[in-house]
């Protein structure tokens, strides 16, 4: 009985066992097939596409980082440092890596002081800068702040302390208009420059020398290959190509003279340009009032900017190279030389000055500044006493075309080509200009007022200084330049900037000496208009000028005290010294100063005296200015 049941059980067991064993074999086959599929995928990744994934792996690991070059420094003629770089730490946020910048800043504000100005600057810059670039949140972190951030740095991915060199102008407002300043690269500049050349650099020259010499000052960016981890932290440097630092600029500019000029102008609005007639080197270039260029380097606050823009005195306006004024009587020596060169007049030939002048057949009276007139005047007296009638007649004799040619020879009506960015060219009218600009023909009366530096005629203080320097150099016009040499750190010998210019050939040597002697008598003569600046040690040649801001009617008399201060005449003065071997030529304008002789001449004299009374050999100043 038991046997069959055992038999059945045994059969069942056998069948069950076969069934499960079959299934287990199927499972084993599936396992092998699945592993083969896996190995096929691995073969695909590791053998077939190995090169592709190797490249990706290298791309992950290796990053190329720009090494920004150090910007060239700027030194004055004495070796005084005018533009420096100093290391600073700022806190920056890369917007690409931060989800909620506002919340991040709010959190940062709990460990660091972040004021309203910081927030506003951040808001402004985040719109200007590229998304992968760091936007500064805080500038000038001190050591304690850096340490405090470092403790919590892990909480702020995308926020980093960045060390960089920032431009600093130790003499601040004294150099603002010459050097210009650097500032953050804006969108307009971004389109103009080669972005790769500025990789890692946030700053670019915005004006003055900084802009004109941008290419030399900037240097060439370097690169390094670094191995980074997934969080972007540098593990080690693989290769590097060092940046080439920018070239240093060594200037003709003499910072002591620059400061002297600023002091001489004082609180008045105006400009002074001093040039060495032997080289065309600019010794001083001052525009007052000025501003602190350091405010602009890392982005000026809106309040500061509004204050500068809103000021009636326009401190941002570079009067020395962009201020265009009627040159007034300061042009008389140049016109006199034009007349001598053209042969329409001789130096001693006399004209009659009754105090007014009329064109033949016209009744309109062109008045002389001296109501009673100067009587019999030759060119000598006409320059010394600044007789208007003499020059009305000389201008009439020359006619507009020859007058234009004579003045253009001295550089009027065109940019001088100085190496300071932003220069304007003034306006020297001509028939062609008037037809083009006004659609009118030239009237003879306009020639007359051009003869005394009024009318359409506009010149910058720089143009006046350059023309005066050409006169001092007896007809050698030299393009003014501020930079004497540029020098790379590796250079043994600095490289001189190119001198350019031309000879004003029409006049004979005798004519130059006659006119210069007349200009010397402006200071030395008993009737000279600048008698008070006479100096016992050396001779000065000069010419005063007064230019009208406000035109008077035919019968009106000018009474300065009745006219509002800003409508008063501009005081001008051009001069050079010493007369025989000039070393300095100066042009001064004092806006609304009144008379040139009384107001502008002493300013020029102070600068000339400061320059000439110093030892002629320029010695490198030992100590640098403290910051």
């Amino acid at each position: 009985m038991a046997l069959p049941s055992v038999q059945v059980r045994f059969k069942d067991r056998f069948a069950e066992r076969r069934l499960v064993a079959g299934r287990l074999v199927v499972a084993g086959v599936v396992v092998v097939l699945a592993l083969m599929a896996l190995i096929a995928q691995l073969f695909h990744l590791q053998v077939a596409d190995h090169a592709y994934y190797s490249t990706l792996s290298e791309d992950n690991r290796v990053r190329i980082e720009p090494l920004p070059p150090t910007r060239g420094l700027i030194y004055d003629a004495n070796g005084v440092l005018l533009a420096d770089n100093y290391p600073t730490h700022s806190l920056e946020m890369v917007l690409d890596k931060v989800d909620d910048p506002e919340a991040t800043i709010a959190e940062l504000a709990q460990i660091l002081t972040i004021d309203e100005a910081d927030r506003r600057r951040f808001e402004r810059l985040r719109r200007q800068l590229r998304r992968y670039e760091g936007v500064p949140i805080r500038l000038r972190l001190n050591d304690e702040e850096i340490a405090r951030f470092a403790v919590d740095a892990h909480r702020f991915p995308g926020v980093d302390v960045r060390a960089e060199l920032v431009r600093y102008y130790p003499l601040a407002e004294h150099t603002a208009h010459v050097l210009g300043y650097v500032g953050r690269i804006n969108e307009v500049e971004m389109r103009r420059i080669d972005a790769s050349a500025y990789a890692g650099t946030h700053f670019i020259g915005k004006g003055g020398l900084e802009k004109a010499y941008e290419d030399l000052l900037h240097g060439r960016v370097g690169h390094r290959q670094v191995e980074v981890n997934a969080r972007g932290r540098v593990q080690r440097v693989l290769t590097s190509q060092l940046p080439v630092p920018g070239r240093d600029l060594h200037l003709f500019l003499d910072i002591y003279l620059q400061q002297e000029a600023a002091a001489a102008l004082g609180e008045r609005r105006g400009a002074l340009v001093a040039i060495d007639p032997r080289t065309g080197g600019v010794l001083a270039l001052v525009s007052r009032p000025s501003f602190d260029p350091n405010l602009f380097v890392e982005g000026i606050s809106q309040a500061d900017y509004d204050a500068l823009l809103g000021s009636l005195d326009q401190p941002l306006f570079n009067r020395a190279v962009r201020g265009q004024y009627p040159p007034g009587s300061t042009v008389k020596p140049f016109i006199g030389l034009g007349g001598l060169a053209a042969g329409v007049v001789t130096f001693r030939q006399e004209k009659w000055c009754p105090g007014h002048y009329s064109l033949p057949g016209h009744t309109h009276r062109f008045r002389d500044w001296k109501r009673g007139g100067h009587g019999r005047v030759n060119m000598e007296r006409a320059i010394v006493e600044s007789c208007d009638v003499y020059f009305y007649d000389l201008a009439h004799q020359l006619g507009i075309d020859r007058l234009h040619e004579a003045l253009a020879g001295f550089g009027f009506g065109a940019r001088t080509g100085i190496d300071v960015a932003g220069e304007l060219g003034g306006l020297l009218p001509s028939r062609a200009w008037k037809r083009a600009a006004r659609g009118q023909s030239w009237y003879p009366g306009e020639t007359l007022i051009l003869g005394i530096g009024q009318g359409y005629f506009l010149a910058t203080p720089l143009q006046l200084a350059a023309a005066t320097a050409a006169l001092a150099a007896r007809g050698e016009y030299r393009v003014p330049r501020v930079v004497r040499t540029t020098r790379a750190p590796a250079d043994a010998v600095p490289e001189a900037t190119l001198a350019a210019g031309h000879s004003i050939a029409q006049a004979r040597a005798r004519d130059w000496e006659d006119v210069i002697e007349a200009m010397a008598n402006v200071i030395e003569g008993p009737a000279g208009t600048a008698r008070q600046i006479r100096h016992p040690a050396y001779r000065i040649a000069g010419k005063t000028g007064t230019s009208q801001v406000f035109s008077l009617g035919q019968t009106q008399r000018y009474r300065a005290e009745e006219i509002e201060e800003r409508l008063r005449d501009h005081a001008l003065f051009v001069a050079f010294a010493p007369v025989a071997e000039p070393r300095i030529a100066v042009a001064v304008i004092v806006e609304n100063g009144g008379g040139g002789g009384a107001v502008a001449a002493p300013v020029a004299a102070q600068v000339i005296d400061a320059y000439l009374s110093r030892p002629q050999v320029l010695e490198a100043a030992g100590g640098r200015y403290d910051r």
Partner: protein
Amino acid sequence: MTGSARLSDLGGGSGRGRLAPLHLDWPLLFGLVLLCSIGLLVLYSAVGEDPERLRGQLLRLALAFALLIGVAQIPPAQLRRWSLALFAAGVAMLILVWLVGDTGKGAQRWLDLGVVRFQPSELLKLAVPMVLAWLFAQRPLPPTIPQLLVAAAIVLVPVVLIARQPDLGTALLVASAGGLVIFFAGLSWRAILLLGGLAAALAPLLWATMHDYQRQRVLTFLNPESDPLGAGYHIIQSQIAIGSGGLHGKGWLHGTQSHLEFLPERSTDFIFAVLGEEHGLVGILIVLAVYLFIVLRGLYIASQAQDTYGRLLAGGVTMIFFVYLFVNTGMVTGLLPVVGVPLPLISYGGTSMVTIMIGFGMVMGVHTHRKRLPV
């Protein structure tokens, strides 16, 4: 038959009179020790040569091997008696987790027992094959329709509870454990085809019930480049690591993807990529060979088991081990979507290691507690 008897003797068997017989299967033990040793080397590199974490892993390994040896001493008949209770306890705890569970890493998986935090879903990976083996051993195979319906309920209840935690990886493992046991029990091929068709038809329904991040994983799997910094980052970096390893690898401790931290989860779910990067295809093939040896040994043991319960249990447990391996390596190489499953016995962490070792303890127990059949 004779072969089986001889093996039984060699394995220590149940021979009375022997001195302190240990119920261990030496080939399987050899495979496991070899795999764990290689795993420790890979892990040392993956944890950034941190001796602390290596020591932690060693301690867990020691514990897991101790459990393996302990469980191997329990006769399968005893396991069979405990099966239903164990399963019931597991499901009860899952329900408890649902109600009062501790949330870790955004998912509700843990049960805080005061001293230790315990993942009940881990228990189900073994309890489900055990209870199914118990169920099918009640009657001669193949299973009847009512048995299959009960089996389906046994699988689905815990799977649904685990999937809603949400823990897709574990739910998948538990489901496949159940499915594999049902398959081994002799589910007819026609039914398998039918269920396959049904599953394909139900896929859209499953899609509708998935969490957003789960859907995202599937989408990312289909096109990793669509989201290179987000969900696709894992797969892309992992493929870069493996692919850049080439045939011979970058050398031990020299994987840039892992050491520079481009590879996420490099000591846990993505450790296979570290292996591929540093040891190349050659290193991977060696490790896969060890895995294959373990799986085939497990299947062999299952085939040699004396009763249905032993066969189904050993086959099921061995195949879960393989599912672990394949889901993980498939994910890391980009064959399968990203599912959080560790590489068995190599990934850093103790939970799955303990489960697997206990499972292999049962497999050894099935092999070493055999009795001579009455002939």
